């Protein structure tokens, strides 16, 4: 099977600003891929080049084996793009919005597909409601349905869950999970690392450069050392003590616990415990936890 996306040496400059630098990436078909990075790292610029909306300064993009520069019309039929500012027509109903996008994509026989999508996104009961009267979560699902009307093989989502509440977010993820069953490839950008953990491959982009690409599990195994979760008395004082300790590579204070990244748990953990004990701080609970992608991200970009 050919890759869904293959980019080689992809770059984009805006004047002096090199937004994307020499990005070479291969995304296998049928997976959910996340492009993660801080604000301004080049995520949106990359995804817009993948969608043929932005001309690269240099480099090439192939979608499903077809070169975007050569076979643009065909490639565009195969992709769907949900941008951060996807516009629905507020004064059209759910049904009419989908029909509008069907006509835009020249899908003549759209009715069966529309039923499928309404069913899939559970918007069927609301089909006659005007888009402007939908909740944020429902609007998001309708935008997705419109993006899928022409049955694209590769779906691009640019920060699809920014500003969406947890219940709608969970619902949206469920829909994406189910979409994978149809063999589609999903590529999304997100600033949220807990979301990236839901994807089967993750690319970290930082200052226009692709720093690393791997499965979330493999990325986590790159983190040297271990993460220890600690519950103790006087948690804020403990934080200050640990922050000043050379054995802790990283300390994070949560509401009711601390997370420590240490290089060598066998040696560093007892040393840190001894420091707390000297300060009269009592450890109530301690365990080694799996690192999060956030731990990996912080260690790779700092």
């Amino acid at each position: 099977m050919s890759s869904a996306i293959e980019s080689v040496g992809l770059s984009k400059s805006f004047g002096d600003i090199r937004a994307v630098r020499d990005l070479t990436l291969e995304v296998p078909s049928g997976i959910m891929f996340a492009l993660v990075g801080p604000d301004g790292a080049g995520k949106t610029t990359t995804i817009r080049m993948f969608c043929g909306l932005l001309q690269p300064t240099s480099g090439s993009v192939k979608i499903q084996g077809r070169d975007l520069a050569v076979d643009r019309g065909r490639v565009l039929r195969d992709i769907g793009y949900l941008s951060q500012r996807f516009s629905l027509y507020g004064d059209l109903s759910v049904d009419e919005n989908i029909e509008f996008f069907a006509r835009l994509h020249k899908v003549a026989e759209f009715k069966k597909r529309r039923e499928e999508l309404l069913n899939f996104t559970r918007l069927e009961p609301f089909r006659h409601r005007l888009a402007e009267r939908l909740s944020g979560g429902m609007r998001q699902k309708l935008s997705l349905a419109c993006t899928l009307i022409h049955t694209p093989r590769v779906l691009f989502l640019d920060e699809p869950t920014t500003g969406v509440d947890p219940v709608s977010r969970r619902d949206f993820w469920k829909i994406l999970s189910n979409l994978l069953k149809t063999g589609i490839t999903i590529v999304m950008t997100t600033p949220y690392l807990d979301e990236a953990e839901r994807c089967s491959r993750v690319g970290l982009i930082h200052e226009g450069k692709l720093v690393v690409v791997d499965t979330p599990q493999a990325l986590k195994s790159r983190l040297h050392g271990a993460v220890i979760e600690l519950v103790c008395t006087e948690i804020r004082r403990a934080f200050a003590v640990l922050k000043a300790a050379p054995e802790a590579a990283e300390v994070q204070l949560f509401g009711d616990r601390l997370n420590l990244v240490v290089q060598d748990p066998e040696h560093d953990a007892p040393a840190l415990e001894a420091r707390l004990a000297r300060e009269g701080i009592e450890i109530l609970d301690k365990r080694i936890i799996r690192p999060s992608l956030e731990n990996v991200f912080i260690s790779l970009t700092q």
Partner: protein
Amino acid sequence: MSSNSIVVTALTKAFGKFVAVEGISFSCARGEIFGFLGANGAGKSTTIRMLCGLLAPTSGRATVGGFDIEREPEKVKAHIGYMSQKFSLYEDLTVEENISFFGGAYGLSRAAIHGRLPWVVEMAGLKGREQSLTRTLSAGWKQRLALGCAILHEPEIVFLDEPTGGVDPVSRRNFWELINRLSEKGVTIFVTTHYLDEAEYCNDIRLIHAGRLVAGGSPRELKRIYIKNPILEVECDTVVDALESLQKEPWVIETSIFGTYLHVSVADEAEGRARLVRFFVARDIAVRRIERIMPSLEDVFIQRIEEENRGRREKGI
């Protein structure tokens, strides 16, 4: 001085027949980071608006910084800081001009603003950028500047309404370190967020759903008390096919793909494990690992809301 900064008793707000907030009660200790979570339309914003003295309650009462929100809304306003997701900064003003503007809006004298300015610049990490136009700043810097502007007048209580939308992980961490430092100085932080991994930074949390409080406690307590269905993480081949078949099994409460793994909620851990093994053996799918995982706050949140919705349906509401 009372140890509680905010005390809410049976607070209710109705708009016509619609009850947006229904008899909620809680208190926030001084210097605490208090998380107030809920979906859109759950009653979060209505509650914040009442606590900021912007909206009168229909019934019940609340004190903020010791002042009654209904009888002394002006005093409440003078003792709080407020920062929203939109950051409400003026994009065409420089960093320094924004600080001066907000200082003026909070009624600080020119001398007082002048005195506080270096502190805000330092805190926000904007040294050397005082004359930069705000619109040229990254989201992380804007966020810290907005926080600085919200606490120029040294309020005892700060309301943060969805403070970190669209901000990257490194900036988010820096932001929370600032918040922790404020809370250490005794400032009470009242925060709402959509991102439940962020609620992990809170000492105490309340979950609001359909206008009523449905869960509360520290992050660890919430995960311990409210998660009734264990979540099993399964490492296996062909997760997409496995998901499709698992969704049809009546004993599977909830399942989703999580990276290259599957997450499966079951009613009972031992029984769930046994059933999963039988399920995979019958389909000849290789399983490498089944492990019970710690639920996330998002798992707790979703589960509580689903229970509530089920309860309401049964009661015919």
